[in-house]
């Protein structure tokens, strides 16, 4: 692991080689171990460690970046020289701002020794327990159990020093019967929150309940979306909450800032300090991250702004910028959707006729301004009638506008830290929506 002191030593050496007006160093990397299982056995089992350092130099408004994973003096000298050479071949950028100076960062604690101590044997033992559950229920298990430690640091020649370490742990499991499947997943910085056995039990139960799936005709249904399904859908809209995206007219929020485009029960913020969130309290330039109320009572209240975008748009930066130089600007990555008190069971009990979705798969954007998405249901899709789950159903394709979705939300669950496969983990509730457009059905 790269301690803060070593980052500072590397930066001192970088500065010795640099004659730039300004010099910035980004360091990132860590360790990652992942045990992968399928067909009730471990079939892949990996570990990696690596650290990259990335140097940005500025010469008279010209800037460029060069990156290496070599830390020896000769490589440090060359990465600085390469960055300088690239920068000097650029046209001057009149919008380029001076690098930020020292910042005071609010502390976040996302590093847990218990996570760093997990061994390959412990991961294998958890897999064995999951496999036992599968075999007991006549199922086949597949999944992953991963742990790791990450480090991110930004230092620049104006005195900024930003340093962050965290840990991560994740267990994901799919249980398969001959004609159905179930899935569960949990992500946390703290291994003590990962209960592999209970996740395996949940996935197994979903697979059992969805046996003998029947085909339901496509159409508009009331839908109950588990948190993983919610986050994988709404994750497709947050790159649009970017000042630069609106400035470029590529965001669906172009001409919609300040308008009520979602239901009054929709409140969304970006808050890296939320106790269930992940990541460092600074952005790609080392700017302090602010908590931002993106949507309040359905109204698009605010976007995120890097320093550069904020300056050009006459607003304050929010600390969501990507490392420079980039053409994207910024985006929120610590999404918190406010929930309510309802349980999924209450949502089911209140539904006359509808569909319960465990997760979605292969979601893609069909229309960038109407924000229509397509994708498939997967690993546990159920027909609900008269307040009860009736049976599993064959998987649907959907084509659904996120704007319509968040205007038809009837019930919200308790917000939780959820993780899916199509987007980054978020704090989101389960949702019950009055209309969801399932357009076609597949063969299983």
């Amino acid at each position, binding site marked *: 692991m790269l301690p803060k002191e070593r980052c500072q030593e590397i930066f001192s050496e970088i500065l010795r080689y640099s004659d730039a007006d300004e010099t910035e160093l980004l360091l990132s990397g860590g360790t990652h171990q992942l045990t992968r299982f399928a067909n009730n056995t471990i079939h892949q089992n*990996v570990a990696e460690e690596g650290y990259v350092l990335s140097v940005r130099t500025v010469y008279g408004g010209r800037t460029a970046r060069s990156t290496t994973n070599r830390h020896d003096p000769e490589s440090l000298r060359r990465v600085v020289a390469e960055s300088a050479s690239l920068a000097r071949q650029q046209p001057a950028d009149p919008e380029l701002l001076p690098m930020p100076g020292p910042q005071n960062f609010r502390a976040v604690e996302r590093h847990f020794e218990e996570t760093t101590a997990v061994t390959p044997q412990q991961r294998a033992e958890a897999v064995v327990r999951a496999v036992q559950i599968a075999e007991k229920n006549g199922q*086949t298990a597949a999944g992953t159990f991963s742990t790791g430690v990450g480090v991110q640091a930004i230092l620049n020649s104006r005195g900024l020093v930003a340093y962050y370490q965290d840990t991560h742990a994740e267990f994901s499991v799919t249980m398969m019967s001959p004609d159905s499947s179930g899935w569960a997943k949990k992500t946390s910085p703290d291994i003590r929150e990962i209960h592999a056995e209970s996740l395996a039990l949940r996935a197994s139960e979903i697979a059992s309940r969805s046996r003998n799936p029947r085909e339901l005709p496509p159409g508009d249904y009331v839908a109950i979306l588990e948190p993983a399904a919610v986050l994988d859908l709404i994750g497709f809209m947050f790159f649009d909450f970017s000042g630069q995206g609106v400035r470029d007219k590529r965001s669906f929020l172009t001409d919609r800032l300040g308008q009520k485009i979602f239901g009054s029960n929709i409140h969304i913020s970006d808050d890296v300090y939320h106790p269930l969130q992940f990541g460092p309290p600074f952005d790609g330039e080392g700017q302090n991250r602010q908590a931002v109320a993106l949507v309040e009572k359905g109204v698009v209240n605010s976007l995120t702004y890097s320093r550069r975008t904020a300056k050009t748009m006459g607003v304050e930066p929010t600390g969501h910028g990507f490392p420079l130089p980039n053409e994207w600007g910024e985006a929120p990555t610590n999404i918190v959707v406010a929930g309510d008190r309802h349980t999924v069971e209450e949502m089911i009990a209140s539904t006359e006729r509808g569909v319960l979705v465990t997760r979605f*798969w292969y979601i893609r954007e069909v229309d960038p301004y109407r924000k229509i998405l397509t994708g498939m249901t997967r690993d546990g899709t159920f027909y609900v009638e008269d307040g009860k789950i009736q049976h599993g159903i064959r998987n649907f394709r959907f084509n659904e506008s996120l704007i319509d979705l968040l205007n038809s939300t009837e019930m919200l669950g308790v917000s939780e830290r959820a993780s899916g496969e199509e987007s980054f983990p978020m704090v989101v509730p389960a949702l019950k929506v009055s209309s969801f457009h399932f357009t076609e059905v597949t063969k299983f």
Partner: protein
Amino acid sequence: MHAVATRNRSMREYAETVLDHLDRREVQYADVRVIEERERNISTKNGKMGHTSSEESLGLGVRVLLQGCWGFAATDDLSADSLAAVAKRAVEIARASAMAKKADTILVPEEKIVAVWNAPFQIDPFSTTVEDNLNLLLQADAEMRAVPGVTLAEASLHFQRTRQFFMSTEGSAIEQTRVVSGAGLVAYSFLNNEIQKRSYPNSFGGQYQLKGYELMEELKLVENARRVAEEAVALHQADQCPQGKRTIILGSSQLALQIHESIGHPIELDRVLGMEANYAGMSFLTLDKLRNLKYGSAIVNVVADARLEHGRGLGTFGYDDEGVPAQRTDIIKDGLFVGYLTSRETAPALSAKRSNGTMRAEGWNHIPLIRMTNISLLPGTRKFDELIADTDDGIYMETNRSWSIDDRRYHFQFGCEIAWEIRNGKKARMLKNPSYSGITTEFWNSCDAICDKNHWVLWGTPNCGKGQPSQTMGTGHGAAPARFRNVTVGIAYAS
């Protein structure tokens, strides 16, 4: 900037050192891949630099088979202590894998190979100046922005050189160097609550091939920039693509992605065997379908071909990451499904005596997985103009905008950037927001015409995701425009 594996110790020495740390009495098989990579990425946006960056990396990964189970460890710390530690770690991980073993992993035999293989190119892209690269993109950018109504113009290029040394306990020692180039542009137009875009020569960054800077010259970015920008603006005035069952003709880049999703992925034998079930999913192509399933119509012939003779695609190489030589494998022959993509570990499931050489890893820090090589639809006999003239009522669609398929690769839906109606053998009005959907085998069985080799392009898909931890791989797909009958069109916008 050059990563300098050879400046201090050679890649071979690193590999030998790691293998020397393994106890050959205990380890059944091991291989080491030492990889040195160099990249350049440049983009422009609305007449300015978007980003300019370079990247180099050097590291190694060791894969160990012990007690019939795999362990893998990777590091970019190439000190003597670290090389010993990484070997030890891979062994420890393999031992842990054995705690959940059901059966021994068996590798089909492979010959010992000692070879050097370098991908051919004409102009080393890293010999060109960043200034010249930027000028090319800015010229294309200016052409796009000269069209009134264009609200965002972007262009980008990418160069990558990968040098790899593979060494195994079976005595193979293979050095390979591959140079990949890619470039493309996109024009956006926002008007009346609608965002339209046109990309050239393809979406998702353009065209990528196993070529040097000569690809930049072949693509003619500047010459095509104004046309596609005009099309992006014109789309606002176009009629919405109708909904219903229609005859469609797909342009070659869209057909390449159709091949990728609905043929390339389902033929991966690791998916078929359940090894990707938790993430990428499985496949409808269960083993009983081999040589029994009528995948497509009789004119559909698909191969997996990693050899240079097939073309310089992202799936072209000399040897895969298990040291297996590049091969050509029939996948669909005269419409019949006849072949999977295999590895040394999965080939026994087919009682095959040898892997067909498709294992590739993203970088030094990942294990190899079965990946598409160049999965190509062989050309047919039709001229494109003749195909249009032969179509009374249809829709011609071009350039992918969205793509989605279920986790067994049955049901797909694609959206394209632009389409034209075909009426009485002529390309007629422009249509916006085209989309189509279907079931894989029904779709390929509805193919009744494929254009000839003059229209065939080996497209590069640089962003194929698979595996846990996720790996991104470049794949190749040769395709010429083709016609399909009775296809569901327009349902994406039905709501």
